[in-house]
């Protein structure tokens, strides 16, 4: 027993030696003096080919490595010059002319309007290139480069959101020789953004280096490493240990785990997502035929409004979101987007008021039965609704408990249905087999995308093909406003129309916004010395990672890797070798002893 323990401890010591040596070894001596920032990502990069990539992390890396026609201004979030120095629009709003900046690809070749034209045309004409950003060119009629510096885009219908185009421009001279459907960009084709990818390992990491020829100037940081963690808890542990320097898009419990460490900054600011309840108000397909099995009472706007009065959003923020969210007094656009955010005021504002909810239902003729549950005015059906949530999201369970309690107070029975995310998407997005469901959307600086999810045309087709509706909403006023804002190129006037659209959703309640979850991030201040969030200049606000701007990663600064570690690295190498030798000696010695003991014993006894 003692011998076994001794062997084990010897092995442990050997392991320790190897371990210690390796930790230091990870600091490659060549990195000394370099500013390296390591970003943890809880999503692996699906592809560095922008025509194929669909994951958020890949979109982020595109923001850090490519130029886009325009980019949101770091302060105002309004479209500002990037690849396009300036632009103009024709009278009818159908023709956009962009003046392309003089810049260089990282292989030294000049960036021209032909690169942009080729990129857009590739997506418009090649089905294999549509995976990444197909919808963004759907309204494009033609894209041409009239000379090296001029790009002309003609659209089929006016499109005010043109300047929020999410497509990175790739170098034509490289990509035209590739099959974009299969090319994996493993040889790191040239880019023109603040950073250049130079090394990638599938499901492990992507490395980017500073681009000295970037048009705004070379970034302060020499190298960005995007390191993949499948498990967010492991990633936070990695941050605390110092294996990574920054991690974004965290859920409340993981973010809270970053507390108590003097070197870690807990970044908690208004987020870009809205969480809302989707209500089956009488779902229809795109040919206006009823679909699904929604409760008939929910067709009545009074019932939907009564539900709205019966939700204590502040309580939900505190109990369900650990206080890390903002109660929603608006609709689908979160307050982070000041220009477009609409907030209910005065008479229209719905507050938590169970008496008022009861009053609305009483007046509308939904009488309470002897069991306290209301019935339809014709007395036929009880007000018993289903609440669809996901199987794998504990916070939604909590939400369901609160809603069930409040709705009971107003004579409505709510039963929770947990669905696998697949089934959930189908039932709430195309077959309409639900009464009330949880949903949410992350909004871009230009909210056009989220607004479009409530259009008539987004309803499923008669054959059941989902069109991406978030509400089965089809409302004349909403449609008209949508068309008007598409044509409105004056930002202030357009914002006014977009606010009216949110008001339409708030008052009619096909969706009821409950809260806007905060943007939760953690970073090490002993590594990252300065970082500017977007939007910048608003105290307590702004997103570092996960926004739609490369600005924070471009403008940040970091401590150089200490030169001392290179000396330690050398020492560590020796340490490793000693460790290995020690381990081998211990093992071999032990084995030899054992063998000898057996041999002598055998000789003695046999």
């Amino acid at each position: 027993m003692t011998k076994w323990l001794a062997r084990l401890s010897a092995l442990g010591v050997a392991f320790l030696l190897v371990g210690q040596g390796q930790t230091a070894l990870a600091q490659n001596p060549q990195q000394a003096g370099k500013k390296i920032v390591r970003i943890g990502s809880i999503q692996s990069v699906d592809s560095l080919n922008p025509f194929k990539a669909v994951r958020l992390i890949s979109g982020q890396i595109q923001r850090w490595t490519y130029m886009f026609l325009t980019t949101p201004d770091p302060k105002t979030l309004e479209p500002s010059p990037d690849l396009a120095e300036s632009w103009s629009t024709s009278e009818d709003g159908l023709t956009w002319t962009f003046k392309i900046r003089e810049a260089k690809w990282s292989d030294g070749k000049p960036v021209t309007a032909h690169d942009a034209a080729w990129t857009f045309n590739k997506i418009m004409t090649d089905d294999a290139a549509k995976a990444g950003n197909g919808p963004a060119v759907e309204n494009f009629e033609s894209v041409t480069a009239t000379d090296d510096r001029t790009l002309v885009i003609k659209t089929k219908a006016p499109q005010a959101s043109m300047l929020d185009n999410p497509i990175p421009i790739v170098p034509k001279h490289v990509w035209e020789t590739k099959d974009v459907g299969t090319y994996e960009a493993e040889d790191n084709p040239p880019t023109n953004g603040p950073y250049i990818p130079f090394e990638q390992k599938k499901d492990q990491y992507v490395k980017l280096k500073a681009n000295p020829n970037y048009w705004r100037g070379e970034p302060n940081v020499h190298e960005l490493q995007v390191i993949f963690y499948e498990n967010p808890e492991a990633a936070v542990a990695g941050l605390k240990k110092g294996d990574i320097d920054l991690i974004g898009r965290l859920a409340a419990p993981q973010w809270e785990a970053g507390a108590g460490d003097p070197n870690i900054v807990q970044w908690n600011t208004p987020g870009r997502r809205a969480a809302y309840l989707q209500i089956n108000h009488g779902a229809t397909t795109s040919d206006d035929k009823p679909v699904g099995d929604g409760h008939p009472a929910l067709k009545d706007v009074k019932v939907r409004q009564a539900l709205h009065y019966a939700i204590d959003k502040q309580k939900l923020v505190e109990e369900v979101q650990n206080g890390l969210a903002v109660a929603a007094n608006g609709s689908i656009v979160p307050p982070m987007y000041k220009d477009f955010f609409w907030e209910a005021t005065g008479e229209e504002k719905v507050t938590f008021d169970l008496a008022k909810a009861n009053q609305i239902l009483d007046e509308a003729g939904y009488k309470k039965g002897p069991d306290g549950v209301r019935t339809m005015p014709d007395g036929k059906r009880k007000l018993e609704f289903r609440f669809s949530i996901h199987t794998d999201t504990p916070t939604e369970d909590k939400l369901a408990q609160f809603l069930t309690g409040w709705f009971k107070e107003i004579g409505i029975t709510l039963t929770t249905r947990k669905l696998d995310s697949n089934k959930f998407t189908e039932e709430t997005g195309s077959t309409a087999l639900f009464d009330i469901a949880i949903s949410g959307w992350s909004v871009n600086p230009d909210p056009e995308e989220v607004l479009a999810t409530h259009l008539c045309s987004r309803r499923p087709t008669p054959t059941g093909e989902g069109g991406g509706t978030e509400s089965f909403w089809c409302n004349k006023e909403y449609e008209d406003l949508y068309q008007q804002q598409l044509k409105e190129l004056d930002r202030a006037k357009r914002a006014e129309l977009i606010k009216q659209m949110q008001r339409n959703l708030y008052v009619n309640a096909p969706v009821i916004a409950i809260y806007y979850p905060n943007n939760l991030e953690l970073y090490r201040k002993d590594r990252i010395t300065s970082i500017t969030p977007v939007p910048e200049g608003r105290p307590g606000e702004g997103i570092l990672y996960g926004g739609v701007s490369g600005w924070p990663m471009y403008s940040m600064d970091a401590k150089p890797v200490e030169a001392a570690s290179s000396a330690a690295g050398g020492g560590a190498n020796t340490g490793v070798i000693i460790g290995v030798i020690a381990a081998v000696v211990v093992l071999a010695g032990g084995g030899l002893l054992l063998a000898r003991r057996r041999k002598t014993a055998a000789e003695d006894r046999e």
Partner: protein
Amino acid sequence: MTAPIDTPIETGPAAVEETAAGPRGLLRYAVTKLGGALLSIGMVIVATFFVFRLIPGDPVIAYTRDVPLSPDQIALLRKQMGLDQPLPQQFLDFVVKTLQFDLGTSYEYRRPVAELIGERFGPTLLLTGVGLVIAVSLGLWQGTRAAWNHGGRFDRLSTGVSLVLWSVPTFWLGLLLLMVFGAGIGPIPGMFPTRGMESVDAPDGFAYVLDVAHHMVLPCLTLVAVVYAQYLLVMRSSLLDEIGQDYVTTARAKGLRDDLVRRRHAVPNALLPTVTLVFIHIGFVVGGAVSVETVYSWPGLGLLFYEAIKGPDFAVMQGTFLVVCVAVIVMNTLADVAYHILDPRVRST
């Protein structure tokens, strides 16, 4: 056991009996088993196709969640995925393609599934392979010792510890080890990496091997801790059976040293049941350890499968599932054949 395999004429019943148990018998046995395996693989292919179509939800809708697409684009996607075909046609395509080792194209990565699986095969084999070797050696060694000193302190301790570890959820144990030895807690420094198979700035040559080994310590430890109990228990109970046998008593009566009785007589016989266990687990090695790979972000098949479920990426799920099933079947067949060679008793039945 010198069967006249090259003699066409067999004389006498004795020779016939000899051959039945000899290489020709083995061949026939192997062929039967192989046929069975092929049949199983065929059934797995059929089952895979239908199981993955029984999963609730429409893959196209699931895939386009949060991506606003027009009906045209959805139709295009459906066509690209081959879902616009009638089910029998889809099935036929699937079978033909699978037999050509074409496992389809991932919806999310837009790459051939076979290629994705190939990329992740190595890391998985490395991790679970090393884990298996350690778990088997540790389990067999402790099992032998525990059985030999049945009821002793070592027996109680090792059986107790291994059973506790066996009942611990892999995910939880992995995270715990990661928090304690990866990130470091209190006086314990973070000695091991918190993720992956290699450092981002991995060195070259021998140092690279060390780097990978360093990354492998915690995942391997987790894997071994959770599974070695089965080897220990099987070995322990099977050795306990043998200890009571007459031949062991005979061996002892001959005056053989205790150690020799154990090593030369009891253990070889007790090892037999573990053979099946080991082979079956070699099959599962291919599937990797989904939990361990997920906790430690190990870029293997388990992680690929997990990501595919999250997607959901049906083609990848289907492909990984198929590969794992086939591996298990192949290993099972090999176990049967190995058993046949190792244990004469199997041959006589």
